[in-house]
């Protein structure tokens, strides 16, 4: 089966000289949910930015379902959905419009995007807020809006960059149920989070970044068992 993502020796040095990624390589199998872990500044967001076109890498290559992100950026971007760490929608626009317009950027006409938006917003409990402007939403609702926007073009690969940050326990549970269901229906998911117990529960495999380098990669259960750690959090702290 083609890898959903193949990252080979990816490097990024910012203009100020900061080396965010120092030759990162790993693969993600199609249909899996992978945890991408690391402390703040480890390079997780930079890597996600490179994959979705917001950051220009300075070396290496990346393929999404076998398609090179440099050679065919439009094709790879149409396969990726990204939920960023920070709220990056127009706070003066209405929830429904934000999602429908996002579909438009992917070439999906309004006649198709409107019913799809209704389905997603209902699933995420935001349908009642479809006419509310973005700035009036609570933190948890804004987070779910980002997820709805990322899913409207039905991506094959979903990048979740700390989607549960600032979301209360109850909403987090609902969000994870939704994400698990997506994965069960074939969407490959890469998840970055600081909630390690959630990563352990949701994902089978993990990649741990430390100062721009992959320091651990493999099946979570196997890594934990081989290291003699109690759980993923214990293992993570030992790395």
């Amino acid at each position, binding site marked *: 089966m083609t890898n959903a993502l193949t990252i080979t020796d990816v490097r990024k040095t*910012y203009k100020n000289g900061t080396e965010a990624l120092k030759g990162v390589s790993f693969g993600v199998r199609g249909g899996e949910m992978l945890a991408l872990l690391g402390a703040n500044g480890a390079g997780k967001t930079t890597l996600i*930015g490179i994959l*979705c*076109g*917001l*950051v*220009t890498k300075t070396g290496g290559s990346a393929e999404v379902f076998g398609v090179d992100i440099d050679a065919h*950026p*439009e*094709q790879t*971007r*149409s396969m*990726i959905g*990204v939920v*960023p760490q*920070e709220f*990056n*929608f*127009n*706070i003066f626009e209405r929830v429904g*419009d934000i999602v429908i*317009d*996002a579909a*438009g*950027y*992917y*070439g*999906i*006409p309004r006649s198709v995007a409107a019913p799809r938006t209704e389905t997603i917003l209902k699933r995420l409990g935001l349908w009642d807020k479809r006419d509310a402007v973005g700035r009036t939403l609570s933190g948890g609702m804004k987070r779910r809006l980002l997820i709805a*926007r990322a899913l409207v073009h039905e991506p094959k690969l979903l990048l979740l960059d700390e989607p549960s940050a600032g979301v209360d326990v109850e909403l987090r549970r609902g969000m994870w149920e939704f994400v698990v269901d997506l994965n069960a229906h074939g969407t490959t998911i890469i998840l970055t989070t600081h909630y390690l117990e959630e990563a352990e529960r949701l994902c089978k495999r993990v990649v741990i970044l430390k100062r721009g380098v992959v320091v651990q990669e493999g099946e979570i259960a196997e890594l934990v068992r081989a290291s003699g750690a109690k759980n993923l959090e214990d293992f993570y702290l030992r790395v």
Partner: protein
Amino acid sequence: MTSAAFVGYGTIVRKETVRIVRIWTQTILPSVISQTLYFAIFGGIVGARIGHMGGSSYTAFLVPGLVMMSAITNAFSNVASSFFGAKFQRSIEEILVSPMKPWAVLAGYVSGGLVRGVAVAAAVFLVSVAFVRPHVTHMGALIFFIFVTCLIFSLLGFLNGLLARKFDDVGLIPTFVLTPLTYLGGVFYDLNVLPPFWRAVSHANPIVYMIDGFRFGFTGTAVTSVLGSAGILVVVAGVLIVLTLALLRRGFGLKQ
């Protein structure tokens, strides 16, 4: 144009048009009010003492200049503020992570500038009818010069939004470049009344050619060569399109 690119382009145009209409008190009304005051004060009160200029009544002389002035400032500020606003809020990332081609993004925002520039120009023209009966000589020249002028200033607005790092950067160009060039571009006076030196200096002002060409559409007479002006403006628009697209493709000011 592929259908996907067309949908993306249409999405930006629709979004921009809805925004212009939704906040019409900020996008359309201010120019209409200020130009009405210009017509009333300079056309009605002062103009009566001036008499004729450029072969027509002073109020009739003012119409093309004031219409063009509104089109220039609105086309520019619409694109500059909308694009920089999207950059500032980071909502531009919605577009950057999508498969939209750079030319479709540019065309979408520039079309928004054209919509506002032409809408405000039309509104100001309608206001002028209350002060003077308009006489159109060359409709083709009117349409061409309003379109190409809005296109050029929409592109300049996009460049400004792309290069701007803070909100102050978006306000600098209209205040220190657009307003002086427009006021000195023959809105209020015929270039022939200037001394030879200042007349020659005025010919270095690109807005002179836009206003003069547009005025030609009304009066049928021009200070500059209308065809020459049209050719230069088309070249300027072409150069701006190439430059802006090159910056956009590189992700200048947008990508890290």
